[in-house]
């Protein structure tokens, strides 16, 4: 699925971004990191969510279509 590939690319980039610098031990509230991290993954999780919603709609539409076809066949 292409959205999965996009997600993978996003996360590899994020991983590289985080992996390169050296880390200092936190003495401040780590909430800052959680806050910024959400902004970083916002695009990816948003995209995945939209893809999922549309995928479900397509599946539901096709399901409806086939069940209608079957009903029509049975009526014939």
């Amino acid at each position, binding site marked *: 699925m292409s959205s999965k590939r996009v*997600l*993978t690319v996003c*996360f590899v980039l*994020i*991983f590289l971004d*985080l*992996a390169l*610098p050296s*880390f*200092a*031990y*936190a*003495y*401040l*509230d*780590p*909430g*800052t*990191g*959680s*806050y*910024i*991290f*959400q*902004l*970083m*993954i*916002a*695009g*990816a*999780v*948003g*995209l*995945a*969510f*939209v893809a*999922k919603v549309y995928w479900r709609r397509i599946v539901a539409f096709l399901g409806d279509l086939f069940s209608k076809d079957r009903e029509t066949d049975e009526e014939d």
Partner: protein
Amino acid sequence: MKKTEEYAEVRGSFRDPSGFVLLREGLIYRQINRAYRGNYDHLVDSGLYDTLVRDGLLVPHAEVGIQQAVTEDVYKVIRPEQIPFVSYPYEWCFSQLKHAALLTLEVQRRALDFGMSLKDSSAYNIQFRKGRPIFIDTLSFEKYREGQPWVAYRQFCQHFLAPLAVMSHVDVRLSQFFRVYLDGIPLDLASLLLPARTRVNLALLSHIHLHARAQKHFADQSIPSKRHSMGRTAFLGLVDSLRSAIERLSWQPVGTEWHDYHAISNYSALASKHKKQLVAEMLDEVTPAPTSVWDLGANIGLSSRIASDRGIMTISFDIDPAAVEKNYLESVAKAETDILPLLLDLTNPSPGLGWENQERMSLVERGPTDVVLALAIIHHLVISNNLPFHKVASFLSQVCNSLIMEFVPKSDSQVQRLLSNREDIFGEYDQHAFEREFGEFFAIQHRRTITDTNRILYLMTKGGD
């Protein structure tokens, strides 16, 4: 609790400036401060409160007069429906924590539909009522500000995702981290413990491993300016991603010491049936009729259900995570409302935790219960744990008013198994000593021998010689 003549402030609630919980004449009230007025009104007026209560997700409450208030900063005082027994995440099995996590996300998802969001996502916001988890912190909702990330994201990962991930991928016993880390498992620790294979799981890679790195990396930086924002779709995506991650985590209740107790127990069908009948008769005999029972060493809850099937609220404690898991899953499958399986090491029961050791109640503080069932555990306490009868009786007298207890004599094959690999230093382990020591704390009402065994069942009431 800070006690005065009229009320006691429940200590676990002091961190939130929106209000606090107080106990007055045995009932829980919640004072809502003026600072929370706008959010509380929105919760009620938007219809979110009604929706959540209707679907059993949020504890219902009644508004009572502000004469119940404790400080002048009051906006309203509410009386939530009372939770019969307060339990904590370190006492929950895997599926209880998982269901609590999914409930939290469902509440968050619905809150967004009504323009609100959870400002915290502590596992302590969840209690079990009528067999199912329910959100109890009515003051956790705040108006959603478009563009804001989820302020409770870190807490959700620490309180739910990280514990469930380490329980699932490392060892289920790591739920006991909750006893040490009151604000959930630190993500750097969870990241360290989780096996390498979890890094190819996109959800765990992002919400735990990378999240932990981000926490360290950005720890000394300030929150970015408003031009960086997170839209509603991304917010929904975050909640959905967490939900998928939680749903995929699983644990099979096998491989622990007691997971197949009935395969190693020595009861014949006849003995088992007679014991069940005796326990039922003794329960019916307790006066006044009990409304609460603690079954200590309940395993998968067979004896607990003698009480809960009578409509008595029964807490079904066991030391084994697999037994508690099976017990809970059975209660869910049968939609039972009067049984709550919980994890407990009786030799080291839940202590008072948090600030001043008072934020989370000890087991003893949550008693006493009307009746304790202590069936087939005396030999484990005395022989496996070197606890004298006197100490066992003293503890039980603190937590119950009536006691239904099984004495397992030394001649029993199960006691012989316990003694097979150790020196018998228990010369005083006999019925006479048992009755003498328990008699100091309890009055023995009945003693009945269980058919086809040499075990004896006792009904005792508090108040000894």
